[in-house]
């Protein structure tokens, strides 16, 4: 069992063990790079990484360059999970056969994918990996849209967001369906650890990543990744938008252990209205009109109901 890395403060954390280089092509203000650094910097152990096709992949491995100072693989849009699962299977085989080159070191296996790769096209592969119990972590960089292809809706896009395939228009308020509950779905696989994280709450995030690395079996991390380009806010506002998301409880931070024990890990001191979160982003701009304003009230009601549900589950310890 490897030692849990001790992290004193943000400054030390943000500069420790940089295995993801700042030299990449992600948009200024993209939360992906913050999340990836927080995941990678949470451990000193060796890492075997995979990424599905998407923003992270196309921005970090453009030949002849790479931003990765750890072994990394990309195959396609849907199969980052299976790529790392295959590598994990090979690790087990070579361990059994005594052919590991560094037998004393135990690498962690991590796959990254966007919400398109996770909630939609790669869902089957992830489900397969979790059912089979590979010792791996899957991190969804959830920016609620197909950002790499220019802003089409995914099954993570929330109601009322304007996306290029569900645009707000004269007679439409944009996306009509509620965001898929991946946390519940992944917990239902009986995964030992499932957690929702946000990069602005970095201590909460590091604690969860380290718990995930310590768990035996498949771990799912749903990481909110505020998208300056598609959510339409200024690049310097990524963290403040993320604060609005976590403090309005639009994006509650919690974990589910062994598929049953739900713990809320962050309770905002001052819960802010959902309206403030929506109002800070261009993708919801059209909601602030007379004909659509009722949707903001519905949003608030949904967020309240979910928060109530999470608290009841936590109290009931189920």
């Amino acid at each position: 069992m490897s030692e849990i890395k001790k992290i004193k403060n943000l400054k030390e954390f943000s500069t420790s063990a940089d295995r993801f280089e700042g030299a990449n092509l992600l948009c200024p203000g993209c939360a992906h790079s913050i999340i990836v650094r927080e995941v990678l910097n949470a451990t000193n152990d060796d890492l075997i990484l995979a990424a599905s096709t998407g923003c992270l992949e196309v921005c970090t491995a453009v030949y002849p360059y790479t931003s990765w100072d750890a072994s990394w693989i990309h195959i396609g849009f849907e199969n980052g999970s299976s790529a790392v699962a295959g590598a994990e299977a090979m690790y087990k085989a070579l361990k059994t056969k005594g052919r590991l080159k560094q037998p004393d070191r135990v690498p962690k296996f991590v796959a990254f994918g966007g919400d398109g790769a996770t909630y939609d096209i790669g869902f089957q592969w992830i489900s397969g990996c979790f059912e089979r119990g590979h010792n791996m972590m899957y991190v969804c960089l959830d920016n609620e849209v197909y950002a790499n292809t220019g802003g089409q809706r995914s099954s993570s896009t929330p109601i009322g967001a304007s996306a290029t395939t569900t645009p707000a228009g004269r007679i439409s308020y944009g996306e009509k369906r509620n965001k898929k509950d991946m946390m519940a779905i992944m917990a239902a696989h009986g995964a030992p650890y499932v957690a929702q994280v946000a990069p602005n709450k970095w201590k909460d995030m590091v604690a969860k990543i380290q718990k995930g690395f310590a768990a035996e079996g498949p771990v799912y991390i749903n990481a909110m990744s505020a998208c300056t380009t598609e959510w339409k806010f200024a690049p310097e506002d990524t963290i403040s938008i993320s604060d609005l998301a976590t403090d309005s409880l639009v994006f509650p931070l919690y974990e589910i252990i062994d598929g049953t024990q739900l713990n809320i890990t962050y309770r905002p001191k001052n819960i802010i209205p959902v309206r403030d979160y929506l109002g800070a982003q261009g993708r919801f701009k059209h909601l602030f009109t007379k004909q659509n304003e009722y949707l903001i009230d519905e949003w608030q009601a949904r967020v309240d109901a979910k928060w109530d549900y999470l608290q009841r589950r936590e109290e009931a310890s189920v």
Partner: protein
Amino acid sequence: MADTIELRDIEVWDGNMAASQALRQVQVDVVAAYPITPSTPIVEGYAGFKANGYVDGEFVMTESEHGAMSCCIGAAAAGGRVATATSSQGFALMLETLYSASGMRLPIVLNLVNRAIGAPLNVNGDHSDMYMGRDSGWIQLGAYCPQEAYDLNFIAFKVSEDHDVRLPAIVNQDGFMTSHTAQGVHTLSDEAAYKFVGDYKPMNDMLDLDHPVTHGVQTEEDWHFEHKARQQHALMTAVIPKIEAAFDEFEKLTGRKYNLVETYNMDDAEVAVVCMGTSVETAREVAEEMRVNGVKAGVIGIRVFRPWPLEQIAAALKNVKAVGLLDRSSPHGAMGALYNEVAGSLFNTDTKAVLTNYIYGLGGRDLTKAHLVSIYTDLKANADAGKVTTPLQQYIGLRGPKLSFF
């Protein structure tokens, strides 16, 4: 350590068991697979070996064929011996990742038990899946019987894993006709089989923790062409000599001789058919019978479908007057693939051979000796006339009215 099995010199195996035993003997590190008729017994057999301690690699039973090949790619990039098996619809589902495996230059051996592709759904043998993979960058070897399915697996691992090659390889065998037909198979001992293929030698392995590697990069118009050109270069220059060397070494070990192009009665042949899979054996019998009736008939079996042995095909057909190209896959709006490939191989040569195309055996329809007699009779007429006297493309063994084109 996995236990060994004392095989008899000759075992009665079908093609699936032969392939499964080969995977056991080369001690594959990771098999990731998904069941599909008629290839399923290969991985069932492997699972049985695993359950009884005869292999100590990992067996990953995935949620789909696409997931299976995705795991194979991850496992191969991690650095070890990898194999899988599939057929038909499963191969079609894998297709995207087949290009990934070859483009990433990863050695993987895929036993492809050939089967028709729906619609209409059909579980029986034809070469639609083999043809679907022909531009995917994989080496493709073809077996005509269980013995060859066994032998060619060893060749496939040896060539695929060679550091000058580093390309995945498919071993084709006909669904049911080979995969489920038990015949005597001359075996290698576990030790000899493993020794022939040798230890896996990793290269750019992700699990070498001191040397991180990036696999599966993005290249656009600046570098994509060069990557694909390197891949083609390896297929066109490295693979054929390596296969020939492996065939030679295998002959020394077993006495069984394989060739890129298998010729039968070709020395003085005036007419010949070119085909693949079990049809080669039927054609050899019929060619023999045609000779009794005064027709100088020969047979060419394609052993290596990719890379295409262009020069060897041209040489083998140099003096033939009429050639029938037998395609076991619907060309869907064109001449059959073998017709086009062979015509392309002969076009700039001095041959005056007349070429005709026969589509046969789709969805497992039998190719009978009578069908082959009719084909040879066509070819003889063309050879005597020195020109095409029959339709360029004919459907053979079809129910109802005859179907032909051009």
